[in-house]
């Protein structure tokens, strides 16, 4: 198959804020280009601070939001092609995992009803017996089993266990792409690594790619093959995870990396806090310039273009830190 798994082309989305008559708009996602090749399964981490458009991007890939401009293609099918859109097929290919597992399952339903409904309604299994076998097999691959899960309510599980079940639910359809929006943010430290390891394992076992959205950079470093850093709706850096995080090219990525509470290396320098304000979304020059320690005059005049370097890295900056000035 020559088609790419996911192509995001110049996608923009803006939200209307303020009262009904206000004309204020913020660009939640601004002209983003991203691609996932479908040849080998990969884990792509999307990182950035709150309000950078991570979740909006996810929701657009899941078709929960429309976009204003650009196009998204999944396995060659354009999202704009409403006639050819088959919700059944779409749900087989893309599946979500959400942040808080206690909120993604209803407290009044047993957890296994979700699993059976996914298997039977999306017509993956022909009958109940078949569904049972399939679910048990998938639950075992995430370290649970149908025996343990059957008849239990979400409150009877710990956060880590429930998140495993929601991963299993997503896997039932054998998707090509799983979108995990902050999957470990609500999980305890002792369980976090188990879940993250699971992603690595499942990637190879089920040949599924992950988009891992997080602001926890240490797990992103651990798990991902590629990283995309967003800032105020713009993709500011993209490339192989290890290179980007060891040697960030954009000043913002550098700032993010410095802010990680690392073990083994104490913070020393003073630190300026960002002032999140909606006017920053409307800046017409480089959006990071007001906070950038290296900003020059040019940065305050116009917007930089994406620069691609030979090793597949993209940077949205006039003066990337890795190049000699």
């Amino acid at each position, binding site marked *: 198959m020559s088609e790419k798994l996911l192509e995001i082309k110049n996608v923009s989305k803006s939200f209307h804020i303020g009262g009904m008559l206000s004309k204020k708009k913020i660009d939640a996602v601004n002209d983003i280009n991203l691609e996932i090749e479908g040849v080998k399964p990969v884990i792509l981490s999307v990182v*950035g*601070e*709150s309000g950078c458009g991570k979740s909006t991007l996810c929701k657009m890939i899941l078709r929960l939001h429309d976009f204003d401009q650009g196009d998204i293609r999944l396995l060659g099918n354009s999202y704009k092609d409403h006639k050819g859109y088959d919700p059944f097929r779409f749900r087989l290919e893309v599946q979500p995992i959400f942040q808080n597992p206690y909120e993604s399952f209803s407290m009044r339903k047993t957890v296994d009803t979700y699993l059976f409904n996914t298997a039977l309604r999306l017509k993956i299994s022909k009958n109940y017996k078949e569904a049972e076998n399939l679910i048990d097999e998938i639950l075992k691959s995430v370290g649970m089993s149908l025996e343990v899960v059957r008849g239990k309510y979400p409150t009877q599980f*710990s*956060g*880590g*266990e429930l998140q495993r079940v929601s991963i299993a639910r997503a896997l039932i359809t054998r998707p090509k792409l799983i979108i995990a929006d902050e999957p470990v943010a609500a999980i*305890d*430290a*002792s*369980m*976090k*690594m*188990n*879940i*993250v*390891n699971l992603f690595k394992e499942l990637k190879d076992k089920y040949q599924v790619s992950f988009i891992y959205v997080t*602001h*926890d*950079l*240490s*797990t992103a*470093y*651990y798990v991902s093959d590629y990283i995309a850093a967003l800032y105020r709706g713009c993709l500011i850096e993209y490339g192989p995870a*290890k290179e980007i*995080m*060891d040697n960030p090219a954009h000043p913002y990525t550098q*700032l*993010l*990396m*410095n*802010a*990680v*509470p*690392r*073990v*083994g290396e*104490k*913070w020393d320098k*003073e*630190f*300026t*806090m*960002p*002032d*999140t304000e909606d006017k920053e979304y409307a800046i017409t020059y480089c959006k990071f310039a007001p906070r950038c320690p290296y900003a020059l005059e040019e940065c305050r005049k116009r917007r930089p273009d994406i620069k691609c370097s030979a090793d597949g890295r993209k940077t949205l900056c006039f003066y990337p830190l890795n190049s000699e000035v």
Partner: protein
Amino acid sequence: MIKIEHLSTSYSTINGPVHVINDVDFEIYDNEIFGIAGESGCGKTTLLKALYDIVEFPLVVDSGKLVLSGEKDGKGFSYETGSIRKTWWNNISYVPQAAQSVLNPIVPLKKQFLDSIPKADKKKETKEQILKRIADYLKELNLSPDLLNAYPFQLSGGMRQRVIIALATFMSPKVVLADEPTTALDVVVQRGILMMLMRLQKQLRNTMVIVSHDMGVHYQVTDRMGIMYSGSMVELGKTEDIFERPIHPYTEMLVGALPRVGDKSQKTGIPGRPPALTNPPEGCRFAPRCPKATKECKKTVPLFRQVEPGRYAACHLIP
């Protein structure tokens, strides 16, 4: 100094008491940042509630007590469980969990600041003088004094959190308790807030107690830390020592499982799950998950004792 003497608390439920803190006994010194780490449901927040003396039904103190003592403005003070309430804001203050939502969204910050000042202090100065002092204090913390006229709903989460910290430290209390001060905030804001707390502690030379489940935060911020597991303290010591040479198997696994930037080697989490507090296992509560557990561990509860000078742990395996 806060002295916690064999404190046990429980929550009363229909099915009988649930023991959440079991015989916790340690001291928090003056002029230090003390961290409490542990996973959810291990009793971190309950311990902090006991420290701040918000002991309200269904939370009950079964045995033991807390003594808060120290010196402020040349006068010594000492309060015990039951009377700590009298010195709220003045000598001890509390930054609760999800602090962003504790401010009343429709009352201007100015009024919320004034409300937190004890009556005795209010009589000494006029309202304008106090407001001036508050504005100066905000400036010192790199916050804009214009904030005083704003309503909390106009501020972002990180900004609200900083305002709460300013509010909690305005009376320069001797003890500041912070429960998960940076959850739900992203790393950049998190760093800003933690640096602000550290700077404040240096300036006020007081005691800060920070509860967090993020071990990275503890490493960066705290001087000494205690690790809790299922309602008991399992290890306590200098933060650096704990990260370098963890003694308790739980701490060892917790530190070993930390993902680090710059390290892609395979890490494993801790298998199993924390025990339900309604029906805890006999003996050491970590035994069912502990790879080194012996028969003794499953029978008797290990004592929390001094292992080395300044280093405490509760484990049978330590000689």
